[in-house]
């Protein structure tokens, strides 16, 4: 059974609509949630957790409806939203004392082992922690109330490459026993390459694709060729960049036959995202 099942989640704002967002995640895996700024990643996460009013849709945690069992479901979820910066002057100890009261399943032993593993000192104040340490502290709290599902909104943004790598190591070890999952949003493609099992790609409030990383990548190809090959094939290109000597573009794998005269190569995640975001024609219009 899916640990997280989001079905047709809707949220309507005057200028933005989250349009029937659906995806699901099995226990034991990491899902990267990607899309540009404003694509609806944070809105989706907030609507999933009832932090903002939703206009439609359902969310199931381990088969139970989140909205009908909100309190019980929240005990199974660890949620870290943006920067963890409340009460900057409080010590970790103080914040932990407050937090543990909310969770009947609080596991003090686990908490202490995460503190030592992440090298966190309880006597320190939040403002004294680096961005990476704050995320780790938030994770320590979530994992100590035995959360099965971690929902993290851009946990790696603002971290230097070393701290980021370190945090991704933590992610992988969190899911290693197969019982927990992580959904995290990010702009950083290398985060996905290093640890995402599944990718959900959202664009303009709609889910474009939600699948495992291998299928995601194999669904596309990069093509390059001479300009003479371009015109008739343009409708099949998801996005393309033209230059004086030819063009490079992204196509769906099933369209590869039409590009036999061009060079065809496997697509990397970064190119998939860059070309897909051109789809609305900004780039081609300017040429």
């Amino acid at each position, binding site marked *: 059974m899916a640990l997280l099942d989001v079905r047709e989640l809707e949220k309507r704002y005057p200028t933005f609509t989250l349009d029937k967002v659906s995806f699901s995640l099995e226990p034991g*895996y990491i899902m990267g949630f990607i899309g540009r700024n404003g694509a609806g990643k944070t809105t989706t996460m907030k609507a999933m957790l009832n932090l903002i009013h939703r206009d439609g849709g359902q969310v199931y945690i381990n088969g139970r409806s989140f909205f009908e069992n909100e309190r019980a479901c929240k005990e199974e979820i660890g949620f870290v939203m943006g920067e963890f910066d409340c009460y900057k002057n409080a010590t970790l100890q103080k914040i932990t004392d407050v937090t543990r009261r909310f969770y009947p399943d609080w596991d003090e032993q686990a908490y202490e082992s995460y503190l030592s593993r992440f090298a966190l000192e309880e006597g320190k104040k939040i403002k004294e922690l680096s961005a990476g340490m704050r995320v780790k502290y938030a994770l320590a709290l979530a994992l100590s109330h035995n959360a099965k599902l971690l929902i993290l909104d851009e946990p790696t943004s603002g971290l230097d490459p070393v701290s980021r790598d370190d945090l991704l*190591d933590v992610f992988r070890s969190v*899911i290693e026993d197969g019982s927990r999952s992580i959904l995290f949003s990010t702009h950083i493609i290398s985060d996905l390459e290093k*640890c995402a099992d599944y990718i959900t790609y959202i664009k303009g409030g709609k889910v474009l694709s939600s699948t495992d990383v291998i299928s995601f990548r194999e669904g596309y190809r990069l093509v390059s060729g001479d300009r003479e090959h371009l015109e008739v094939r343009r409708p099949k290109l998801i996005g393309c960049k033209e230059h004086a000597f030819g063009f490079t573009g992204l196509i769906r794998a099933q369209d590869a036959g039409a590009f036999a005269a061009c060079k065809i190569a*496997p697509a990397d995640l970064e190119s998939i995202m860059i070309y897909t975001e051109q789809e609305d024609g900004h780039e081609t219009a300017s040429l």
Partner: protein
Amino acid sequence: MDLSLSGSSPLPIYRQLFDQLCSQILDGRLKSGDALPPIRTVARELSISVIPVKRAWEELEAAGFIESFVGRGCFIAPMGTDKLQKLKQAMAADKLSDAAAYCRGLGLSREEAAALLRDAWDSTEP
């Protein structure tokens, strides 16, 4: 079991894993009945996601190199000398066909290419 991944390889990660395990099974470094570590452990150790490891293991199983048992894990499949020989030939034929295409592309004759292979064979004699 030795595994090392290259970020600059054009091959996807699951393919690199598959190739490396294949050659270790074929050259006898991994033997029938040897246990493979759990998929999740391999992923964590190599700092990669679970899916490529899972895919590599699935393909190894489909090709007859490994067997999996629910609850016990994966093991190198038992292989008679016949099967081992066939798998070796299939792997070698795969590499040689690239080499043959390369020779053909350079305009060498069949005999010239065969002679080159013989020379190469002799020069690598230990």
